[in-house]
């Protein structure tokens, strides 16, 4: 009996001691919060390799700026500047007084979009609207739908109504300029109207551990055509893009670009192909960062944006805009009319 206890007790102690798994904790002070932020990004961010970022070097440069005497505002600035090194529109630091954004992914480029020009000069404010979609028929007989956001799913019934209304048009323009993205399920809803068979939609991957190279094998995923009875679109399509076409909208463009009879018209999109995760710091500040890369159907990253179809790269001419012309839209109308 004593021998048995001698065996069981150490084993039980070992199991119980080994069973309590720790999550590293940081102090709620400037140093602790800075280190927690750096560590969270170090272990979870997914684009270090693609962007050739030496995150240890970033720590070495920013860590000396942290002092326990600094204010929350000062700490926020240092942390936000450190996050800007990631050059990622999906990375934010949120406090009660500010939210950091890396804006250069779009602010360094022409905007190429003015909603008012289309509403006033192309529709004379006489367009139809359902949810986040406005739509109508442009001269000469080209359908137009502008999807301003994918944050909310577009209803199947709404899409049926839109496509039915535009059914007699010779082509369709889908305007995704300034669409900052939203839900991937909204992408599926839209793409399903433009495919007639099960279609490879891309690959999704995720980090499997804290190492910078710990990734799962990219997993292929497929979209099905819309259910029987729904309206599909088979005529030519032009998708309008600008640098602010981002995230889920960027993903939508990557799929549409590979479909037959679809042209991407405008400027290179903003990218944002990493599905963002959230975390937080000891002081309660929220963090958002890219954690799960999504690749296009060819297996390529679209983090840096998607170029327009060859021969369809167009900018909005500011001079023409003054006289009510959207040169990207005009190009698409001509492209589809031909």
């Amino acid at each position, binding site marked *: 009996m004593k021998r048995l206890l001698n065996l069981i007790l150490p084993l039980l102690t070992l199991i119980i001691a080994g069973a309590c798994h720790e999550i590293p904790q940081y102090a709620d002070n400037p140093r602790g919060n800075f280190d927690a932020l750096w560590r969270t990004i170090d272990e*979870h961010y997914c684009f270090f390799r693609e962007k050739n970022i030496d995150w240890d070097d970033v720590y070495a440069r920013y860590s000396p700026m942290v002092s326990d005497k600094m204010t929350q505002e000062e700490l926020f600035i240092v942390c936000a500047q450190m996050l800007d090194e990631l050059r990622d529109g999906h990375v934010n630091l949120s406090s009660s007084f500010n939210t950091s954004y890396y804006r250069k992914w779009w602010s360094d480029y022409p905007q190429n979009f003015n909603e008012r020009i289309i509403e006033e000069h192309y529709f004379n404010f006489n367009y139809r609207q359902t949810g986040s979609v406005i739509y109508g028929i442009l001269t000469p007989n080209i359908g137009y739908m502008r999807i301003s956001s994918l944050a909310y799913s577009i209803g199947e019934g709404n899409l049926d109504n839109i496509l039915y209304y535009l059914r007699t048009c010779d082509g369709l323009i889908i305007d995704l300029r300034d669409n900052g993205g939203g839900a991937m399920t909204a992408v599926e809803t839209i793409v399903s109207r433009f495919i007639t068979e099960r279609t490879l939609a891309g690959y*999704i991957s*995720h980090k499997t*551990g804290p190492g910078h190279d710990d990734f799962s094998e990219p997993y292929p995923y497929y979209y099905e055509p819309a259910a029987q009875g729904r309206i599909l679109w088979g005529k030519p399509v032009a998708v309008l893009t600008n640098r602010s076409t981002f995230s889920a909208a960027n993903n939508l463009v990557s799929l549409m670009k590979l479909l037959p009879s679809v042209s991407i018209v405008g400027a290179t999109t903003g990218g944002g192909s990493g*599905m*963002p*995760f959230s*975390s937080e710091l*000891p002081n309660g500040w929220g963090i958002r960062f890219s954690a799960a890369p999504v690749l296009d159907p060819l297996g390529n990253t679209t983090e840096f944006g998607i170029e327009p179809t060859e021969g369809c790269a167009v900018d909005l001419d500011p001079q023409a805009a003054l006289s009510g012309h959207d040169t990207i839209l005009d190009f698409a109308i001509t492209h589809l009319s031909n």
Partner: protein
Amino acid sequence: MKRLILLSVALLAVICSRAQSDSVPPLRPVTAAYMLQAGSSSVADSYLSPLTYRGWSAAFAYERMQAMKFDPDNWVMRLDARIELDRGRNYARNATSWRIDALFSWGMMHRWRLTPALTLAAGASTAINGGCIYNPRNSNNPASAKLAWTVGATGYAAYNLRIGRLPLTLRYQPDLPLAGLFFSPEYDELYYEIYLGNHDGLVHFAWPGNRFAMTHLLTADLHFGATSLRLGYRALTFSSKANNLVTNIYTHAFVIGISGEWLSLSQRHSLSRDARIISALY
């Protein structure tokens, strides 16, 4: 000789009487208890946040015990069904997390009546539990789902005593899953990816080294006639690690409930006055 005959007749009478008694199936009342729990919780799930969320814990539990038909003196079964709800706040008190968990466990124990008052029991149980931890602050990782099927060790020590004229039963019942299967997403895997069909690496073999989930239950059943008032304490210590994701849950809760022994009566089978009553717990 006459004395020997009398003794033999008496012995035969006792044996016959015993045989007659044994031929009557014993009555095995169900010891059932309905319990409410309230206490504190400490929840950390690294899929959602590295921070620990502390707050309240509440639960509703049902427990049912009964002596087993095949050997009612020595074996008892126990069914434990529980639904728990925790709400916690982070250290900065600017975010909230919720945890909901449902558990259904069934076990069988061998018991030893060491003295008329003290009973020890040990056995095995199997459990299914599922739920999730939800942090509405998060964008694409707002919830961490929990699902497990386990087999483990359980047992109890029960002691009957009186305080003044009030009889009561004290019990300590630990429960420790030892093996099984449990679900965990991969490190930074989106549930959207799982929805798309990637099910690799989601199911793990559980053992106390990667999924330690010990429950301690202390109860005092105060017997007021047919119904008892149950007062107690339940503690859960949970720590899991899979796919580099760690979950730690600690709850401490005060238990209050009613318990009692119930007999199912059938019109077809009338009660025999000779039937023994074998309680599962008291």
